[in-house]
């Protein structure tokens, strides 16, 4: 029996453990340094006027109110379109198709949709919604384009959420004379809902930060008024950020504005996430499944 063998094993164990720990702490560190940097540079710009006033003086002064409203409109619009369609597609794939080449084909195509670069969505949205369907640059064209982008995330998470629902619930429901649709709507879907909402949260995060898809479909360079219908153009936070950082009237003077805009964008995503999380927790408790 050689003793050093055991201590070498323990050393290897300790080294591996510390490497894993440091790497994951490092990832967290990156997140916090980005947040910290943005907050440090931008938080002093953010005040009530900043979030409630129109931009002034070639976007170097005033607020970003229209861009906030624009982004909220686009999030709402894209979710109204993508959430029901995504959830229904997820239900179809998991509940109505058998485990066959057909299901795998549909899943593969959905995954491919997620892999398409967002600028391509933008071009597609422009040619289909803006030009072909004649919506012009508008909230509806932008929302539909962003919705397409969000679809694969929602479909995938719905599928996973439904897959994790124990079959014994489905069997119990069917054995009581429920139809498949009743089983889905009264048992399977409510049980899966908290996890489906995770997909909703992820896609809100994705949609709110995208610039390329709205570039040719809705975003206005400078539009100091609020939209009155879904056929209006709007300003949007990510595009506004891009504009005042790269091609504004005076980039140096609007630098602070740019960081402030980033802070607001991050805060909006954060607040929406917190709300969705609270809803998820509430539903999780309501349909507690042990």
């Amino acid at each position, binding site marked *: 029996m050689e003793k050093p063998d055991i201590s070498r094993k323990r050393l290897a164990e300790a080294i591996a453990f510390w490497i894993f720990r440091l790497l994951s702490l490092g990832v967290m560190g990156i997140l916090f340094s980005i947040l910290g940097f943005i907050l440090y540079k931008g938080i002093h710009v953010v005040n009530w006027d900043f979030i409630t006033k129109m931009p002034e003086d070639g976007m170097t002064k005033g607020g970003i109110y229209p861009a906030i409203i624009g982004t909220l409109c686009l999030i709402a619009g894209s979710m109204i379109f993508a959430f029901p369609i995504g959830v229904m597609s997820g239900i179809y794939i998991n509940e109505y198709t058998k485990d066959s080449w057909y299901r795998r084909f549909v899943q593969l195509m959905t995954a491919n949709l997620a892999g398409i670069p967002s600028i391509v969505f933008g071009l597609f949205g422009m040619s289909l919604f803006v030009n072909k369907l004649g919506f012009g640059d508008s909230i509806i064209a932008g929302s539909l384009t962003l919705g397409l982008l969000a679809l694969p995330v929602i479909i995938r998470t719905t599928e996973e959420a439904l897959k994790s629902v124990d079959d014994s619930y489905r069997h119990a429901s069917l054995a009581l*004379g429920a139809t498949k649709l009743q089983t889905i709507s009264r048992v399977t879907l409510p049980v899966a809902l908290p996890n489906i909402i995770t997909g909703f949260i992820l896609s809100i995060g994705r949609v709110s930060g995208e610039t390329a898809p709205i570039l040719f479909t809705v975003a206005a360079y400078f539009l100091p008024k609020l939209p009155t219908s879904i056929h209006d153009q709007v300003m949007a936070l990510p595009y506004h950020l891009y504009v005042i950082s790269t091609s504004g009237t005076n980039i140096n003077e609007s630098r602070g504005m740019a960081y402030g805009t980033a802070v607001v964008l991050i805060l909006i995503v954060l607040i929406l996430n917190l709300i969705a999380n609270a809803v998820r927790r509430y539903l999780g408790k309501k349909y507690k499944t042990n």
Partner: protein
Amino acid sequence: MRFVDILAKSTKQIKHHNMFKIESKDVHLHYGAFHALKGINMSIEKNTVTALIGPSGCGKSTFLRLFNRMNDLIDDIKIEGQCLLDGKDIYSKDVKIDDLRKRVGMVFQKPNPFPKTIFENVAYGLRVNGITHKSFIEERVERSLKQAALWDEVKDKLKKSAMALSGGQQQRLCIARALAIEPSVLLMDEPASALDPISTAKIEELIYELKSDFTIIIVTHNMQQAGRISDTTAFFYLGELVEIDSTKKIFTNPNDTRTQNYITGRFG
């Protein structure tokens, strides 16, 4: 239930008065290439308890699931022969599966209450079958919980989640849930195998009492249980029905040596 339905039900019962409640005639079942049931013939009388026994994989659960067509959920399955309920083939095209399952209730091996309230669990079968009358549902929920010997334990917490109940209570809740839609047949797939001895005793007592209103088929791995609660016992082995007779006969003087070996614990 509407009056017309009651009338239809009672005339049906009169019509089949001297028929067997359940019959299977030369039933074969294949899962893909696997021949799971090999020509099963069985006749079950009304208001009796029939125990299906046999080693794991002998086909007894598969046979049980023929009668509420739960096997239909499995892909690549082929069923031959006839399964009759009140003299009518339940696999004929004019039988709607959800209608059949209203008449043939099922209790599963693992208690599987829905993550809903106790009340909603029992009301579920009524609601999915289109019943909306509030006081009717309340009445039926109470009656079913009483039948399942659970009422006294849960009457003050009907609005609480069913998931908070103990395993034995959950299983009785599942029985109440099955009884609420007034089936005439109750299929039980090892209903007590996941429960402690006291809960098991309660379930067994319950089965004995339910016999007066229902025809019960129960799959069990527990010989003593089969001996205690059933009128008739059927022994399955490798997809065949080896022997079916009165429980007393099977447990004291079976005809087939395989039955003898199984009940004395020589294999299984």
